[in-house]
């Protein structure tokens, strides 16, 4: 039952989503692409791009879009897709509601407790590993092109990856600008290059 699975999957993501937007993206990616095969790597990558460029928190945007896409990919109508997107968003938020009611007072009192601090300082390096794994998993033939089939696409992809990385880290360019420029280069290059 797809809708039940969507609920449990996104409840789990909300419950274990430590470490901010991209850490949550890595959880969603793992559940949705690797575990459930609800969509392809490229479809998921496109969802991340759109989630970055539309208003609102990236995690919520991605959950909404993934809920929609998973349902529509399973052969349901767009109306059911909307239901899927609402369900995914609601399920992501549910653990936050529950935890806020249960432990916010406790946490407020004990944020400086050595045990709590030890757990969070142990989670920080783990979250970095999570984000790295998400990026590594997206560096595949689906997203970069197959060098044995289309060398031009592969080379341009490597170039766009490296240039984007420098633009974000060194030049502190806005991620949205990076996406728009890469998209424009892709559109021009692949549009005018006869395949």
């Amino acid at each position, binding site marked *: 039952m797809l809708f039940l699975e969507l609920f449990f999957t996104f409840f789990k993501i909300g419950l274990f989503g430590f470490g901010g937007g991209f850490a949550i993206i890595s959880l969603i990616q793992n559940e949705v692409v690797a575990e459930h095969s609800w969509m392809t790597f490229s479809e998921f*990558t496109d969802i991340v791009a759109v989630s970055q460029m539309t208003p609102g928190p990236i*995690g919520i945007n991605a959950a909404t879009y993934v809920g929609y896409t998973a349902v529509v990919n399973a052969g349901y109508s767009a109306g059911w897709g909307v239901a899927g997107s609402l369900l995914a968003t609601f399920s992501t938020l549910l653990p936050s509601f529950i935890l806020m009611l249960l432990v916010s007072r406790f946490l407020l009192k004990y944020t400086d407790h050595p045990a709590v601090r030890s757990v969070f300082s142990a989670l920080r390096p783990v979250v970095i590993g999570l984000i790295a794994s998400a990026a590594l998993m997206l560096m595949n033939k689906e997203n970069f092109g197959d060098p044995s089939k289309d060398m031009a696409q592969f080379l341009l992809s490597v170039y766009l990856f490296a240039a984007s*990385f420098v633009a974000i880290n060194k030049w502190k360019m806005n991620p949205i600008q990076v996406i728009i420029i890469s998209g424009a280069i892709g559109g021009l290059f692949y549009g005018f290059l006869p395949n």
Partner: protein
Amino acid sequence: MPDVGVNEIYVLKFDVKTVNLMAPFSPLKAFGTFFKIGFFTIGGGPVMIPFIEKEVVEKNEWLTKEEFMDLMVVSQSLPGVFAANFAIAIGYRLGGRRGSMACATGTVLPSIICILAVALFFQQLRGNTVVENVFRGIRPAVTALILGPIFNLSKAAGITWKTVWIPIVSALLIWLLGVSPIWIIVAGIAGGIARYLMMNKEGQ
């Protein structure tokens, strides 16, 4: 009620401004406020913080700066989407369950509206060559975007040569062996507790 005591301390400390602390809170107004913030901030949680502060602390005076900071720490510590956690925490503090629902709905509704508009629009464009070409350019950039903050995060997390194995092993377990990130997080929590217990033992 313990809150009363806390407020009295704030009143003593911060005079005039905090007298308005329990100023009229309406869930509908809170919904509108968070809806507006959600609609006009692109880039997610961290971008929203100054806007939320402006509305909640300065304009409406629903919270003091200190309460705002406390709730921010709690929202960052709990799992889940930070911006939503923050909205839930602020709403709950101000208006209980109804308040938290109002603020959370206000925060996520702009996302849902925009994403569904984009999703329905793209469904029409499926298979369009131009769109596909544009996304072929975007995909490698998205990978760089996700990988981008790694070094800054490592600095912020205080990663040293002694701890650098943790992110590397975590990433390789997920990437090469297909271990679920959830297990890696559970292992991280267990590791943190174990380290605390060990330090406690040594301290005795």
